[in-house]
């Protein structure tokens, strides 16, 4: 794990990061920072031992690193899939949710709240809360509720209360606003489990640390399997938690390229006239600003109003990105690229058809970049951040609108 105090102030990544939150929350994030240092960084009371044991027994870690044979012969380089889709719950999100819910328990908190976009983080938090016997309430945009129904039912089944958020476009940004408001009201007995490497310090650092198990395992698995490191690690980037989780163990390996694939949506631009961005590519085209507690790269207009973003994938549909990732991109350590909705859907179908793995639409963006990946090198690790069961309804709908090579007919009930 990297040094939490690196840089000018705790929680700063170059110019990015910080703690831009309402005064009422400042004592809570100081308390959280203190708990993070004690339990996570110093393993006080055996916290990290218990966390790792639960990730193994409840979560099913380690997840495999699988050589993808068909993709490898298609591209002419070896593709290794880090199978986070096989983690309990079907996505990498459990690594963080389990870590934070356990930490909340060590801190003596009684109640968990969380925001969710695609529902993967909400689902993971609901599972972790049920597993650790904590009350859980999840904030989710109404639009996302409609496009991610299976996850809504899963959360309810795990005993979580669901709070629909109808303001704005009814997606992750609004759900995050509402969760922050709720936290400001109930901060004394409640922990807010942020779902990505975003928000005020210590969240970006702490969530990265909980997710870094992905890259740590992949690095070890490459060394065991092949006796070498990969040439590249590729991961999709929305908020950036699977991205930082996959990259963190490789950041100091200069020979390993790190590629963050953003959602290009339906166009890589900012439409000032309509005040929206038809993409979620804040690393690629965002400008520095402050949102949800941190200074980072944002999709915003020239006044600083945050724009509605767009992606076919609800989990990437966010106007901000983790501050550490923004800094790594500025430092040219991480390369930010993007693929559009169509390419992501094609990659979804390709992996499903040729490898027998139905990936999340988020993950499909990372997979889609392999098509342009001539410079990725001989050995490429792709983080399969989650499985696509939750996306089936949107995939059927979106596929019907397009002509995607090799996609099956979706009209099976005609």
């Amino acid at each position, binding site marked *: 794990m990297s040094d939490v105090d690196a840089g000018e102030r705790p929680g700063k990544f170059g110019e990015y990061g*910080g*703690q*831009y*939150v*309402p*005064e*009422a929350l*400042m*004592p*809570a994030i*100081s308390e959280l920072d203190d708990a993070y240092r004690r339990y996570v960084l110093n393993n006080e009371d055996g916290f990290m031992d218990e966390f790792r044991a639960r990730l193994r027994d409840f979560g099913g870690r380690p997840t495999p690193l699988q050589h993808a044979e068909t993709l490898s012969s298609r591209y002419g380089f070896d593709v290794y899939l880090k199978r986070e889709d096989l983690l309990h719950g079907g996505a990498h999100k459990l690594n963080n949710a389990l870590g934070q819910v356990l930490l909340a328990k060590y801190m003596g908190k009684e109640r968990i709240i969380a925001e969710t976009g695609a529902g993967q983080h909400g689902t993971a938090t609901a599972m972790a809360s049920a597993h650790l016997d904590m009350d859980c309430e999840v904030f989710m945009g109404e639009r996302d509720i409609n496009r991610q129904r299976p996850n809504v039912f899963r959360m309810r089944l795990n005993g979580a209360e669901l709070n629909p958020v109808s*303001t*704005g476009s009814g997606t992750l*940004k609004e759900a995050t*606003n509402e969760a*922050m*408001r709720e936290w*400001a*009201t*109930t*901060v*004394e007995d409640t922990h807010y489990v942020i779902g990505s490497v975003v928000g005020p310090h210590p969240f970006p650092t702490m969530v990265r640390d909980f997710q870094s198990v992905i890259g740590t395992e992949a690095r070890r698995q490459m060394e065991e399997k092949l006796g070498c490191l990969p040439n590249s690690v590729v991961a999709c980037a929305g908020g950036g938690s699977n991205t930082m989780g996959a990259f963190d163990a490789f950041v100091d390996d200069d020979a390993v390229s790190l590629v963050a694939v953003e959602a290009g949506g339906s166009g890589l631009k900012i439409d000032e006239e309509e005040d929206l961005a038809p993409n979620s590519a804040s690393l690629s085209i965002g*400008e*520095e*600003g*402050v*949102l*949800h*507690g941190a200074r980072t790269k*944002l999709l*915003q207009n*020239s*006044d*600083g*109003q*945050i724009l509605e973003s767009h992606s076919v994938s609800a989990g990437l549909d966010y106007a901000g990105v983790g501050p550490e990732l923004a800094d790594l991109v500025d430092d040219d350590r991480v390369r930010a690229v993007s693929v559009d909705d169509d390419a992501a859907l094609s990659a979804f179908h390709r992996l499903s058809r040729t490898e027998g793995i139905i990936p999340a639409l988020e993950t499909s963006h990372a997979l889609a970049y392999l098509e342009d990946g001539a410079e990725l090198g001989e050995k490429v690790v792709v983080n399969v951040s989650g499985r696509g069961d939750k996306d089936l309804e949107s995939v059927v709908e979106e596929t019907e609108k397009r002509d995607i090579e090799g996609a099956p007919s979706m009209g099976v009930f005609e």
Partner: protein
Amino acid sequence: MSSIRAAFEDTDAALVPYITAGDPTPDATAAQVRALAAGGADVVELGLPFSEPIADGPTIQNAIQRALDAGMTPDRFLDLVRGLDVDVPLVCMTYFNLIYQYGQERGVEPFVEAAAEAGLSGLIVPDLPVEESDALKAACDAHGLDLVFIVAPTTRGDRLDRVLERVSGFVYVQARLGTTGARADVSDQTHDSLARLAEADVPRAVGFGVSNGEHAREIVAAGAEGVVAGSVFVDIIAERGTDAADELEATARELKEGAVAGVAPRPERT
């Protein structure tokens, strides 16, 4: 002495109403401010609407949305302030990103300079804790603006000292945890917060949930030098639209009278 400080000195109990600039239209705001001043407002807080108001409850969120939909922007806000001929000091309440993005070069200086030039007397930035405020404080000092900080029920010990070292104009005492919005009662946390701030050398104005004259009286009787009220005024605008002036003035008068009625039982400040 700053104009905000002077406004508190001029009265026994100050009324600080909040409205969102541009709600329901950019042209409606000037008459609203004049009505509040006529009703007894000592300082007026004008919200510059930001798309992600994380410290605000539903009432002010909706006002902000109406104002944004009607086309309010930072430039129009400053034009509006320039055109206001009222003799109460105006404080801009907005979120940090709008201040940071203003002007050709990113940073706090251009907004603060323009704000001072337009005639604003101070700023309140609810998502900027004292730890992140070095640059903004320096710019406010350079241009003669007060920087008002919020003290929450959870602000104690060293953090409270740091806020009090940096605050100017008045300290905004958050009556309860949570977001802005009208409530049915005055929180017990108010008494506790005022006691913790007894040593502060700036006036203490209590807000979050203040919605009638009785609240204002209780708060001043508990020791406050002023009350901040927002949602009660914003509700009037939501209901009356561009025809809200009379009712804003009447409600300001009710709150001001309530505040003044609290002066007699108010304990001496130590």
